[in-house]
């Protein structure tokens, strides 16, 4: 479903072309091509140490590539939610100050951004007292304050419990819906993000496979990378079409093996 906002922000927002980065003689990022269009949600997925965060840093211009280049749409506004932001307890900081660290914003704008992610009551809460989910929402609000064309979210659900994760992904999908911004997300759990993503890039230093989430989930490279764990998930999520139950709950007689 395309909203008006999506249409007006069509076209490529940012693209990495042949991005390569070596670290200690090894290619951490190896010839990666990736583009994000206005209004779409792209998820980067891969095992630990696959280079997901590094790729994000390359795209944001925080790290210069050894090879390839990053093309940004001129005037592109990016809202960034970094991985692992921890404010040292020795630094007294409330949410309002965290929101306005680099750019000033009116009280009303801060309040509105927090309300958009459902934590308006936290404006004056000390940052160190926030739960994992609250902190991620505050950081999301922070990214929204820039009125971004592109949201870059590095593991937006980290430190968040299972139910909170699903809720957060729904929230992100909703933000895209009514703001029409593009979203680049990093995740390590494809099944969790499937519903909230248009395209998936499976990364292990290079792009192993990419496409719609359903096709990536069945891609041999993806399965090889994530091994038996995701094979089980496939079973869990697909098995309900494999057999039927009789009235007592036992598997009906004509059934075959279920995953």
């Amino acid at each position, binding site marked *: 479903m395309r909203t008006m906002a999506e249409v007006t922000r069509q076209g490529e927002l940012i693209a990495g072309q042949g991005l390569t980065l070596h670290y200690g003689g090894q290619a951490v990022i190896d010839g990666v091509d990736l583009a994000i269009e206005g209004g779409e949600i792209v998820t980067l997925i891969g095992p630990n140490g696959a280079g997901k965060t590094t790729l994000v*840093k390359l795209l*944001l*211009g*925080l790290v210069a590539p050894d090879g390839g280049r990053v093309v940004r749409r001129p005037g592109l506004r*990016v809202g*960034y939610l*970094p991985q692992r*932001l921890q*404010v*040292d*307890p*020795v*630094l*007294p*900081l*409330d949410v309002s*100050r*965290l929101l306005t*660290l*680099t*750019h000033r914003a009116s009280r009303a704008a801060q309040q509105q951004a927090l309300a958009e992610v459902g934590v308006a009551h936290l404006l004056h809460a*000390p*940052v*160190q*007292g926030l739960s994992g989910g609250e902190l991620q929402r505050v950081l999301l609000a922070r990214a929204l304050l*820039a009125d971004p064309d592109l949201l*870059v979210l590095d593991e937006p659900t980290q430190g968040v419990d299972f139910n909170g994760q699903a809720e957060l992904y729904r929230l992100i999908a909703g933000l895209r819906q009514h703001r029409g911004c593009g979203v680049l997300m990093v995740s390590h759990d494809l099944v969790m993000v499937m519903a909230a993503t248009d395209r998936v890039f499976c990364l292990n230093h290079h792009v192993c496979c990419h496409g719609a989430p359903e096709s990536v989930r069945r891609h041999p490279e993806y399965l090889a990378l994530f091994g038996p764990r995701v094979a089980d998930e496939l079973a869990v999520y697909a098995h309900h079409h494999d057999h039927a139950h009789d009235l007592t709950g036992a598997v009906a007689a004509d059934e075959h093996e279920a995953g």
Partner: protein
Amino acid sequence: MEDFVLRGLVAGLGVALLGAPLGCLVVWRRMAYFGEALAHAALLGVALGLLLDLAPTIGIVVTCLAVALLLAGLGRHQPRFASDTLFGIVSHGALATGLVVLSQMEWVRVDLFSYLFGDILAVGYGDLGWIGLTLVVVYAILAWLWRPLLAVTVHADLAAAEGISVARVHLVFMLLIALVTAVAMKIVGILLVTSLLVIPAATARHFARTPEQMAVGAALVGALAVVGGLAASLEFDTPSGPSIVVAATLLFALGLLRRHPDGSGRRP
């Protein structure tokens, strides 16, 4: 009040005012070891200043900056060693080199004790001038860079992604620490300079809800420590620099009795 006591008091208060915001930044950025390394390098700066016939303050600032850059470079190119190891090496290496060089300069008479532990009652009008000048420079730079400094402290990548030049901010921060070290040394000495940065800031944390409150609180605690330490020094004839640091430490201990205003200090 005697003239030299008044000069000492003014100098001490000036240094407390200087050290407060920078001390907070040192504490927030976990750079106490870094400050220590620069302070120790200051003795080498004194020696170089004497050798080249420069004002000691200039020798100290230049040496501190050189050491800061060396530490930044080592940190990047020697991943084998943790930063506290590197800081320990550079810090004590510089201090020892300073002592060796000074010992070889037989043509100057150096009161080593006053360099190591300060001599607030020997502060002259020239020193007051340096402190005043440094105050103006440091506060002007802070007025310009306070927000970026805070942003880089919270998350360097986030600040960089939002348009802040992290390397430049870091460089300016090192310059500020070098400047403060150079003038604070006169008051509490090389070995105790860092304590004048760290202790008032840490004490102020007990009472602060915002970064700025903490900086103001640190200035007040520092001023109180200077007044108390100086008074005790005159009353009991104790060395002035260490007396000020003892006073600051007592204030910190008192602060421990207070509950944190926002509860954040008790989270792991």
